[in-house]
C-alpha cells in the first residue's frame, strides 16, 4: 500500500482552506490532478537556470533545454512502453492528439462510405474530431453499445466491424463510469487488423500502461491529469503508421528543406511538432512521470480501487443516491445523483463543505441522454485521497439531502 500521509505532504494545495475554514477535499482529479511540489519547483527552477528555446540553438542554455526536452520524451516512452521515442509526439492536450490523428489518418485512409467505430460513452474530445472527419469525408460513424456499468457490449461491438471499418477510437477508462475497456475489445480489432486509438486520458494516471501489450495503434493522454502541468498532451502512435501519415500543422522545426515552391518534412517526432513546443511543460510532465513511477503505478492502482470500493459501498447504502455503474471493477470515478437534487446544488453545497466534485455532463452529452439524465455529479480520486475524506463526503451528501428536503 502507499503512504498517503507522506504523499499528501507533497501536494502544497492540500493545505488550502476553502472559504478560509474547511480543509480542501479534492475529488476532482479526473478533471485535472493537483501537482506535487516536485513538479512545481522543478519547473520553477528550470525557468531560473536552464530555459531557452529548443532544438535550433548551439549555446549552453539551448543545449540544456533541448536535452531536458528530449529526456522527457524518453521518460514518456518508457512510461507507456513504446518501442521508440520517435513514437512520442508532444501536443498541447489529448484533445489535440485525437484531432491530429483524426485529420491525418482520415486524409490518408478514409473515403466516402468508410466506417469509424466509437462508443456511445465517448468524451466529446473523442467524438467531435471524428464528427469533423465524417462531415468532410462523408464516412459513417457507428457507435458500440455499452451496458449500465459502462462495459462495451462485446457482441454488438464485434457486429460493427467489417471491411469498411477504417479505425476504432474508444476510451480506455470511462470518465463517467470509471470502468476499463476490456482487452477482448482490442483483440477483436487486432484480429481484423483495424487500427485502434485508445483515449487514455483517464487510464494513464491510474493503470500501468503498456501500449504494446494493450495492442493499440494510438494512445493519447494529457499531462495535467497525470500530476503534470497544464498545456501538454501526448500522442503515441506506431512508427510505421505515423510515418505514412501526412503532416498536420506546418511550421518551424518540422521542415527538412523549403523553397518557395515546395517543402519536405523531417522524420518523427519533429514532423508533428511544428513551432516552438511546450518546452517546460514537457519537462514538467517528465518530472511527474518520475514521481508516479517512484510510487509505482500498481500501488497507485491498488490504493485508488480500494478507495473506490469503499466509497461505492457506502454510497450504495444510501437510498437517496443513484449511482451510474456499480460494478466492482470501477476505478477512481463514481458518477451519481442525489434524488430530486440537481448536480449543481450538490456541487455548490459540497464546495462550501470543502469538497470539490464536478457537476454537469462531463463532456459526454450523448451518454447523458442515454442515461436519461441532464447531468450527474462525479467524484474522482487521486493518489492523495483517503478513506477519511470519503467519510466527510458521505456526511456532507447526507447534510445536502437534508438541506434540500425541508
Amino acid at each position, binding site marked *: 500500500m502507499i503512504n498517503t500521509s507522506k504523499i499528501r505532504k507533497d501536494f502544497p494545495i492540500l493545505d488550502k482552506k476553502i472559504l478560509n475554514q474547511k480543509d480542501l477535499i479534492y475529488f476532482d482529479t479526473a478533471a485535472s490532478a493537483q501537482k506535487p511540489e516536485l513538479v512545481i519547483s522543478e519547473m520553477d527552477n528550470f525557468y531560473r537556470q536552464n530555459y531557452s528555446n529548443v532544438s535550433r540553438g548551439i549555446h549552453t542554455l539551448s543545449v540544456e533545454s533541448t536535452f531536458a526536452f528530449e529526456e522527457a520524451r524518453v521518460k514518456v516512452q518508457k512510461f507507456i512502453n513504446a518501442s521508440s521515442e520517435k513514437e512520442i509526439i508532444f501536443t498541447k492536450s489529448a484533445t489535440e492528439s485525437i484531432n491530429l490523428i483524426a485529420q491525418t489518418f482520415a486524409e490518408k485512409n478514409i473515403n466516402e462510405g468508410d466506417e469509424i467505430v466509437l462508443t456511445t460513452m465517448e468524451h466529446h474530445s473523442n467524438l467531435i474530431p471524428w464528427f469533423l472527419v465524417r462531415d468532410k469525408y462523408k464516412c459513417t460513424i457507428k457507435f458500440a453499445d455499452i451496458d449500465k456499468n459502462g462495459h462495451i457490449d462485446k457482441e454488438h461491438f464485434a457486429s460493427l466491424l467489417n471491411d469498411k471499418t477504417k479505425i476504432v477510437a474508444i476510451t480506455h477508462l470511462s470518465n463517467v463510469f470509471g470502468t476499463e475497456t476490456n482487452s477482448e475489445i482490442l483483440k477483436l480489432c487486432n484480429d481484423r487488423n483495424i487500427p485502434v486509438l485508445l483515449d487514455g486520458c483517464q487510464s494513464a494516471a491510474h493503470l500501468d500502461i503498456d501500449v504494446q501489450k494493450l495492442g493499440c495503434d494510438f494512445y493519447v493522454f494529457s499531462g495535467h491529469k497525470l500530476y503534470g502541468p497544464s498545456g501538454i498532451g501526448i500522442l503515441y502512435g506506431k512508427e510505421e503508421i505515423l510515418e505514412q501519415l501526412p503532416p498536420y500543422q506546418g511550421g518551424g522545426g518540422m521542415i527538412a528543406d523549403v523553397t518557395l515552391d515546395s517543402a519536405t518534412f523531417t522524420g518523427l517526432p519533429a514532423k508533428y511538432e511544428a513551432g516552438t513546443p511546450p518546452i517546460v511543460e514537457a519537462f514538467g510532465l517528465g518530472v511527474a512521470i518520475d514521481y508516479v513511477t517512484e510510487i509505482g503505478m500498481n500501488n497507485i492502482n491498488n490504493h485508488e480501487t480500494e478507495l473506490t470500493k469503499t466509497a461505492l459501498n457506502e454510497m450504495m447504502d444510501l437510498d437517496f443516491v443513484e449511482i451510474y455503474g456499480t460494478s466492482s471493477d470501477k476505478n477512481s470515478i463514481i458518477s451519481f445523483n442525489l434524488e430530486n437534487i440537481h448536480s449543481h446544488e450538490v456541487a455548490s453545497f459540497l464546495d462550501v463543505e470543502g469538497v470539490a466534485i464536478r457537476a454537469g455532463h462531463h463532456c459526454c452529452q450523448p451518454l447523458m441522454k442515454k442515461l436519461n439524465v441532464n447531468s450527474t455529479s462525479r467524484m474522482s480520486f487521486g493518489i492523495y485521497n483517503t478513506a477519511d475524506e470519503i467519510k466527510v463526503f458521505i456526511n456532507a451528501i447526507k*447534510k445536502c439531502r437534508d438541506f434540500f428536503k425541508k
Partner: protein
Amino acid sequence: MNDLLKELYQEIILDHGQEPRNFGTCENHNKSADGHNPLCGDKVHLSFYLDENDIINDIKFSGEGCAISIASASLMTEKLKGMKLSEAQSIFNDFTKLVKGDADTLEILNDEDSLYALKGVEAFPMRVKCATLAWHTFKSAVENK
C-alpha cells in the same frame, strides 16, 4: 448550516425552484428563444407576447435545470409580465450586476424586489450562468426577428 448556502437557497428560491410559476409555452406568442448552458447542459425555452405598445403580455418558460436557474426563470417571468420592453432591458442589466456582486450600482431594482432573492449567487461565481440563463434567453428572444 453555512450562511452562504442559506443566502443562496432562500425559501423563495427553493419554492420557485420546485414549483416554478409561468411554466409552459404561451399559446399566443410572437417572441421566443432557446437558452442553453453548454457547461452543464441546462436548457430553457422562453416565449412571450410583445404587444403593439411594447408591453410584455403573457410570458412563459419551460426547461430543465438546477434550482437556481429554474427559480430565476420563474421569478423573471413574474417580474416581466406586463412590463414595458425598455424597462425589462434595464432590469436585465441590474439583475446581471446583482448576481455578479455589483449590487451597489443598481439603477432600478431595490432590496424589496423579489429578484433580490438571487443576490446570494454573488458568493458562487460559477452559478452566475445558472442565474442569468433565463435572462440571456430573454435577450435573444427580443433580438430574434
